[in-house]
């Protein structure tokens, strides 16, 4: 995009857009010029939303879900079962499981899965924090709900080696989830069935 006909502020926006997942250079240009054409109103609203996102949200200090208050509403809810922790890769997975209305325990968001080939190792995920939570004593069950992918299975297997010495029940989300898929794309019925058929490890 080093075109002299494009002003630097536009070039910079295009560059920034293309750092987002799922956005290539073409889409990035299209979005940037779309914002220009729509006058300032949409662009300013977008700027405000982004500022709000950065200033008002943070990770919950207990479960690392995205939240505006700490602890997050789920962790603060005393009617939920705090002795059951469901471990997911991403906040989107948590949303998918909440969408079933069938789970009343709490969560732990790892923010990724182990993937040595992409340079993601245990220290890059919220695993130490999970271990500390489980080791604190109130937890009865850890439900491993990483994605049914090769990386998700590896992550779950690694969590088992780290947690197996602790006096908790370890379970894995049941079968029926499409292999290789992400939790966030599974429908509520499939997820409910997977929750009901969780397997003892």
């Amino acid at each position, binding site marked *: 995009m080093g075109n002299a006909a494009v002003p630097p502020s536009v070039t910079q926006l295009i560059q920034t857009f*293309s750092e987002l*997942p*799922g*956005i*290539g*250079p*073409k*889409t990035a240009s299209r979005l940037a010029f779309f914002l220009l054409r729509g006058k300032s109103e949409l662009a300013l609203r977008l700027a405000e939303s982004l500022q709000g996102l950065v200033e008002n949200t943070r990770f919950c200090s207990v479960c690392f879900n995205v939240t505006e208050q700490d602890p997050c509403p789920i962790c603060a809810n005393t009617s939920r079962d705090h002795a059951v922790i469901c471990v997911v890769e991403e906040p989107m997975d948590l949303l998918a499981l909440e969408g079933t209305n069938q789970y009343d325990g709490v969560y732990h968001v790892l923010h990724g899965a*182990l*993937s*040595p*080939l992409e*340079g993601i*190792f*245990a*220290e890059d995920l919220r695993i130490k924090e999970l271990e500390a939570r489980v080791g604190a004593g109130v937890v009865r069950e850890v439900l491993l709900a990483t994605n049914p992918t*090769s990386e998700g299975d*590896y992550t779950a*297997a*690694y969590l088992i*080696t*780290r947690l197996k010495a602790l006096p908790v029940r370890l379970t894995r989300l049941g079968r029926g989830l499409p292999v290789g898929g992400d939790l966030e794309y599974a429908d509520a019925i499939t997820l409910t069935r997977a929750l009901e058929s969780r397997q003892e490890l």
Partner: protein
Amino acid sequence: MYALSGMLQLQRMYIKSLSLRHFRTYMRLELDLPTGPILLMGANAQGKTSLLEAIAYLALGHSPLTHMDQQLLHWSAVESGMPFAQVRVEVVKRDRVETLEIALQHAHLTNGNTRLDKRIRVDNRAIRRSALSGHLNVVLFLPEDVQLVSGPPSGRRRHLDDLLSQVYPEYVDELSEYQTAISRRNALLRHLRDHGGDRRQLEPLEETLVRTGVTLTLFRRRVLALLSLHADRYHQELTGGAAWLHLEYQPNFDPQAPPQVDYQMGLRLRERPEVMVDVATLQNSYRKTLQQRRERAIQRGATLTGPHRDDVTFMSGGYDLGTYGSRGQQRTAVLALRLAELQWLEQETGESPVLLLDEVLAELDRTRRAYLLNLLGKVQQTILATTDAEMFPAEFREQALKLRVAGGIITPS
């Protein structure tokens, strides 16, 4: 002749038609193929080998000549900016006709990059790579085959992998899982060496290696025992009973030594019966070795133990042909091996494979040439590429379909 024992009940598969789009030198090719011998004649670099490669591509799921699918695309397809290639055959099986197809296509990724996508279809249904196993079996004779005896171990491992993958979908899956675990473990080992970290991350990967690795070695042990048996008989026939051949599996880890042959005085004594090793013993041994060598693996940033380091030696007359054999001895051994493959595929699948021979006759003396041609006359379908048709006896040429190959165009001759 040995290969024909019991062949009466054998079903024989053959290729009824071949269709290529933008594959190597071929812009477009539609070719009907008969049973019996087919002679592809033409100068070098005109597309003879590419045609054999295309057929092998559908049997193996990858090219026997390159790791990079990109190289299979016709230059015009690359220049067009819309690269696309397709290989398709109709295979006549015992009770039906199947269409096999692999298409290569540039897919646009969401991040704006492109990637060469490979789509495999059987009867127009998309399938996983492993589900391609068993649909088309071939034995491929290449001029560089002698490298199987004298070249590096990686070639001998690939040979075993390709042969097993033609027949067993589960072998394809286990191999792919094993290879992923090796790459992951190696990346993790380098990370642990350079940045430190929790070594327990190795454990799940090692469990995958143990589970899949032992399956791979058991498959390899079994196929080699049978191949060795067949290859030995062919080798004796090819040498007029003068020399035996033994293919010896050299697993990289083994709790007990493999069955040894006593090579004293170049005479083969009776082979000891196969030592029975159970899966659990093998797995425990492999697991223990991986754990014991962890520190060294971290230093080296590589996995030092496992079937990715297996080897096979070609033993004859008391010595290793790879090191001490003459060029001629190595060629005879590899010919015996290819014929053993044919025999093994027939036994495993109940169907006779399609034979693909690239310039192989030129390397053989008159006796071995006659032996091979005699054998080929009895197989359902053989496709032979040659620069010099005169090498074949007139009688053979008469019964063969003769095709002239020039610049990626095929015409009857």
